[in-house]
């Protein structure tokens, strides 16, 4: 950046900060309100609700009594981990093949990869529901919950982009020595791809963890529902069962939000703009 630009930027720095701070308040206030509201004994919507006072954990106990938080969290966890494992195993294989191997139909697979990112997934939920729940009998089943998200195409794309950047010559030597492609992938390519793998897994995590419509359709049994679904059913028809419904709802919202937010804050530098850019460039 040149000196003249630097000076100009400094001049506009106050304006920048005011703009960004206004934005930050608008983005963070609902989160602050969620946490404070979840900790107050009586949670009403008036202005005092934004002030933390008389803090208690009662709302967490209440929402746990209504929807069994532990069980819901476990279901969310199983669904999410299932998706992560499938994406990691099959996605890395596909990404490596698309980047470093030549085979018939490669162009078509890559075109399909780009195309599916443009298809609104919700449109497919009805036929998928008919197939998965009615035909395959996978209602109230972890496999049925995982199936539509099993391999995240954006992650496959990220793996492919990363493996394409590795120099061919790196793999030639191993091939001449007779190493199998699987071994090359496992021992040479994958260790180098650790940052890409982490980014892809973080991007993949928020999908199944936050997903509502699909698990809502496939799980009727409360014991099988992930937290987003049980919290939604609390929101629409169980609020009357607790003393402080708004507080209990906000407590549930906090429990649902915390894992994704915590992972994001921990690994924030991996959610870089360039990754997103390459992930959506299509």
């Amino acid at each position, binding site marked *: 950046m040149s000196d003249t630009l630097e000076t100009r930027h400094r001049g506009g720095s106050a304006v920048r900060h005011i703009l960004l701070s206004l934005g930050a308040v*608008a983005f963070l206030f609902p989160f602050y309100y969620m946490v404070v509201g979840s900790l107050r004994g009586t949670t009403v919507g008036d202005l005092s609700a934004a002030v933390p006072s008389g803090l208690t954990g009662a709302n967490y106990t209440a929402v746990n009594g209504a929807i069994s938080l532990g069980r819901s969290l476990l279901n969310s966890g199983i669904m999410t981990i299932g998706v992560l494992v499938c994406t990691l195993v099959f996605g890395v294989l596909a990404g490596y093949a698309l980047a470093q191997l030549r085979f018939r139909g490669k162009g078509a697979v890559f075109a399909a990869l780009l195309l599916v990112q443009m298809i609104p997934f919700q449109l497919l939920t009805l*036929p998928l529901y008919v197939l998965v729940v009615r035909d395959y009998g996978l209602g109230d089943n972890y496999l049925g919950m995982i199936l539509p998200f099993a*391999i995240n195409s954006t992650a496959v794309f990220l793996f492919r982009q990363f493996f394409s950047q590795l120099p061919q010559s790196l793999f030639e030597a191993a091939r001449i020595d007779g190493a199998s*492609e699987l071994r090359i992938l496992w021992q040479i390519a994958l260790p180098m791809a650790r940052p890409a793998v982490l980014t892809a897994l973080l991007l993949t995590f928020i999908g199944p963890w936050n997903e509502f*419509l699909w698990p809502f359709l496939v799980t009727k049994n409360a014991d099988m529902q992930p937290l987003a679904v049980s919290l939604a059913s609390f929101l629409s028809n169980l609020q009357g069962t607790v003393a402080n419904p708004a507080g209990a*709802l906000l407590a549930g*919202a906090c429990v649902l939000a915390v894992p994704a937010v915590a992972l994001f804050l921990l690994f924030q530098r991996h959610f870089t703009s360039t990754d*997103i850019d390459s992930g959506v460039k299509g």
Partner: protein
Amino acid sequence: MSVNLQSAPAAVRDSAPARREGPRRARGLSRVGALFVSPYVLFLVVVFAVPLVYTVWISFHRFYFTAPGTDVDSPWVGLSNYKDVFTDPVVGRAFLNIVIFLVINVPLTVGLSLVLATALNAKIRGRAFFRAAFYLPYVTASVALVAVWQFLFGSDGFVNHLLGSHAPDPSWLVNSHLAMPMIAVFVTWKQLGFFVMLYLASLQNVGKELYEASAMDGAGRVRQFFSVTVPGVRPATTLVVIYAIITGANLFSEPYLLTGGGGPDHSSTSPVLLMYQKGIEQGHPDFAAALGVVLVAFVMVVSLAARKLTERGN
């Protein structure tokens, strides 16, 4: 192709003579590649291709949900389901709602995220904090955020207490004029961080010399924003618009949860919500399938039109 490879016994592949493997590798073609990619191909077939074809098939038949194992005829009914879709006033309302969504969401998203990204695109103090703050709603579950918004914008909520006698009546989420705009604003807020990051990446590609040249010519900051930044990030804008259209076409949780199942008089019903209500709640999957096909066509037409518009003059 992939199925064949998968079912080939592993022993046969491994014991293939090296001299046969040699020329294959020299030509650069490998069976391993097809083998590696086959689970993913299978996934795409099962989760995308088959359901897509199945929707179209269902949409031309009278289709009932049946208990597993029972065999019920699904007679061909031609365009009858489509006729039902096009004559249902709620369908029209649902598509109008998507248009309302886009009219509010697209300019707000493009404007706000471009301004915030431009403000972030410098070495300023607290950059990491601001980035994290903007991105937070994007990584958080809709269901959790909907819970807070209901509480903020409820009849007895924080915002109405703040506004006092200026609060809208009926309140935000149960007002037939405000329900859909509220959804558009909620989604804008939730997704904005993603688009800020997208624009931030795109801004790296805008030539610095363009800013310098325009500064030489005496262009002010605002002038620069409109004549250098805005055209410079046009490819990103196209992407933002396409994503907004896909988001609009996918709307379900927000109308279902935020405005209690589609708002008063279907004022915030979305096509996907309608597909759920008609297809699963009311047991007309054939109607829902035809609606889905119409929605895909709608998305394609609007996306193409938007692409033409945003890329004009490029």
